[in-house]
């Protein structure tokens, strides 16, 4: 018997129909992977199942009985848990308080902390997280926070968990750990709906794959038998024979040379490498290896304890973003919404940010100049939006294009991209890969940090592997196999 059944679920927002008559069954102890590009309808479907929004038509049943959740709380009472892509934990409360938030156990009119800590601790240990339940959530790794979320859902008696991009912020080791837990819970009969972009993961973990495209359910597969190319074709509706563009060989001339670079905060030590004109230099490693901290330091965003950076033969003043930008080192940061774009400002203003020195004359910056400048860039990089539109209204991929476009306009010497495609759908990823290839072709030194190994290996001429803040090796592309990189990263 199916734990959850959907029949003919349809949902429209205004004139746009985002789901067309979806039928879906999730059986006991089964993991159904939900695939699809951004806007295909995955989030809407999750919202309907978890009680955030009602369907326009269609019916649902839960363990044989009709199911129409009026609110998320209602869905939770039925035994359904939604784990968001972006964590919804309260950072200054303890782990145990987060697990029991809204239903803190009481005894004699006071919170029963002993009971709460014990129960939360049991669940966390079962999930393989060995930390004290009384410590605050702030400072926990993303992976650990996710386990707290899962523990919270399980104490609520969840028998079906919806995981939305659970591995987006996880490194390889954490991902494997998460999968082990999912397998264990499946064996105990817990069902999963698993939303992801990462096709290679799905092959490892899913029992079945369901593909959505433009609100239609276009395919249902038995995972083990589906080649990645088939899934991609299902998702984008056309055959994709190549994700990564051809890369031209780099020149011999080094643009940037880094020697003995050591973080002031202790995130990395004694890093040295150089990147040539036209070269894409990949940095791989698991979460916490110090990759983001390293590229932030190169871009002047974080202070450095020791070491030197030479750009075109001249030393760079460290720890000053304005200085790095002036010399031609630009960074597309990992946290797009927090560090890349100003969400409530227009695309035009976001593009002008960092280019004021070029657009202004004697300090005058006219709105017409900004608009014209922005229109040009929007067109050139194919950003889907008008210059006056707010950055918040854009998809992740288009926000990323805005950040890239801002720096492209400066024609920099060194272009650093940290997790350039995180949370971005397939179609938009290909466009960003094309941009990266074009930057290299224009003679820039390009540094790409990514947790997606396939991406690093597909783009980079050279791959450097970091582990625990140490440089484990610099490999030319030919020598950098999947296995070799993982060996170094986890050494």
């Amino acid at each position, binding site marked *: 018997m199916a734990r959850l059944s959907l029949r003919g679920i349809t949902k429209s927002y205004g004139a746009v129909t985002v789901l067309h008559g979806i039928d879906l069954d999730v059986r006991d102890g089964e993991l159904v992977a939900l695939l699809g590009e951004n806007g295909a309808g995955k989030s809407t479907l999750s919202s309907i199942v978890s009680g955030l929004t009602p369907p326009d038509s269609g019916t649902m049943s839960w363990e044989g009985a009709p199911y129409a959740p009026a609110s998320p709380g209602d869905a939770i009472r039925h035994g359904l848990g939604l784990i968001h892509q972006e964590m919804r934990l309260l950072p200054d409360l303890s782990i145990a308080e987060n697990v029991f938030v809204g239903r803190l156990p009481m005894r004699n009119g006071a919170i029963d902390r002993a009971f709460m800590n014990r129960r939360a601790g049991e669940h966390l240990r079962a999930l393989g997280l060995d930390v004290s339940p009384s410590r605050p959530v702030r400072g926990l790794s993303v992976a650990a926070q996710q386990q707290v979320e899962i523990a919270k859902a399980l104490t609520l008696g969840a028998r079906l968990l919806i995981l939305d991009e659970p591995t987006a912020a996880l490194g390889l080791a954490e991902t494997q750990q998460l999968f082990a837990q999912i397998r264990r819970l499946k064996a105990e009969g817990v069902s999963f709906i698993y939303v992801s972009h990462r096709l290679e993961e799905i092959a490892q973990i899913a029992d079945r794959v369901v593909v959505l495209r433009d609100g239609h359910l276009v395919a249902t597969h038995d995972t083990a038998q589906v080649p990645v190319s088939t899934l991609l074709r299902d998702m984008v509706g056309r055959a994709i024979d190549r994700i990564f563009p051809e890369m031209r060989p780099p020149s011999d001339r080094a643009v940037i040379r880094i020697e003995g670079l050591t973080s002031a905060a202790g995130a990395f030590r004694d890093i040295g490498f150089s990147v040539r004109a036209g070269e894409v230099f990949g940095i791989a490693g698991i979460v916490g290896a110090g990759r983001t901290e390293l590229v932030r330091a190169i871009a002047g965003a974080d202070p450095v304890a020791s070491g030197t950076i030479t750009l075109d033969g001249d030393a760079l003043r460290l720890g000053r973003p304005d200085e790095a930008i002036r010399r031609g080192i630009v960074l597309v940061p990992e946290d797009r919404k927090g560090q890349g774009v100003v969400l409530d400002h227009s695309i035009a203003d976001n593009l002008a940010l960092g280019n004021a020195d070029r657009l*202004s*004359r004697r300090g005058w910056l006219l709105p017409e100049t900004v608009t014209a400048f922005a229109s040009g*860039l929007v067109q050139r990089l194919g950003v889907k939006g008008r210059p006056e539109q707010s950055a918040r209204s854009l998809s992740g991929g288009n926000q990323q294009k805005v950040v890239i476009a801002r720096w492209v306009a400066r024609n920099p010497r060194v272009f650093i991209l940290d997790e350039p495609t995180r949370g971005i759908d397939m179609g938009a990823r290909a466009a960003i890969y094309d941009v990266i290839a074009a930057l290299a072709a224009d003679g820039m030194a390009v540094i790409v940090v990514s947790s997606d190994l396939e991406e690093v290996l597909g783009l980079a001429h050279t791959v450097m592997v970091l582990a625990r803040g140490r440089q484990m090796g610099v490999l030319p592309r030919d020598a950098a196999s999947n296995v070799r990189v993982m060996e170094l990263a986890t050494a």
Partner: protein
Amino acid sequence: MSLQPALSAKAIPAARRRSLASLLSGAQGPLIGLVLLCVVFALTTNVFLTLRNALNVVDQVTTLGILALGMTGVIIIGGIDLSVGSILALSIMVLGWLPQQYGVPFPLALLLCILTGGLCGIVNGLLVTRARLPAFIATLTMMSVARGLANITTDGQQVVGYPDWFTALATERHLGILSATVGLFVALSLGAWVFLRYRATGRSLYAIGGSAEVARLAGIPVRKLTVAVYAASGLLAGVAAAVMAARLDSSQPSAGLGYELDAIAAVVIGGASLSGGIGSIAGTVVGVFIIGVLHNGLNLVGISPFIQQVVIGVVIAVAVTFDTLRRKA
């Protein structure tokens, strides 16, 4: 596909539209509210809609208006300045006390009055950027310290009597219209409007308020500009102090009590967001006039002071709700 060449400012066609609409951009919502208020008062009292009264209102809002200009900058970068009322008091006491106690020449005292404000603002800025205090706390401490210093200067006494030429700046209406202090307010407003709209540095303030980290990573000197913005707010409080002294022909240490809240209200009524990144001088000026017209109109109509307090609170709530809903629509 080549992404070069980078654009330069010269290559951009100058498609310039200049109209009243651009002057008021971002302030249409509050403006509707102001017009509505004026209509209501024009219908309820026959003395409201006269040139003389209009000039009175402009005169009455000058001090608040000058404070609100500085507050606009502070709120745009995502800060708050609770100390402007107290800084005004300290500056106004400096202006009265130095000539009286030490025989400092009046023009020099006037300069020191304004600089005192700027100095307090710089301290605010340093507390925010260097000591990393939240703006609310940093300026709250300054609010207390400056008020205390204002009282210390003359041991709480007031100073009466300024040179005639100085008080004439506030009272003499040139060509029957513009007193020098009102002219100063108009000039400062225009200057601030141009700065925030057309200067690269002014635009940077919006980026800082939108996201300080994005701005820093884009090479904007966030700390330096933050200090400058608080300094400007303090400096303007010093200017407002001089204007008030000319208007009242006296200085007292209790001057400007609670003005910071009126200034914040005016900026927010003008459409600024307390979380930063949004706001405009045009909106603020309209907000200042909403507050000014409200007080003026209610007095003209002869409404009891207790009912006035209720009406003012309700109108502010309605004005801000109106603007918030309008933006969402």
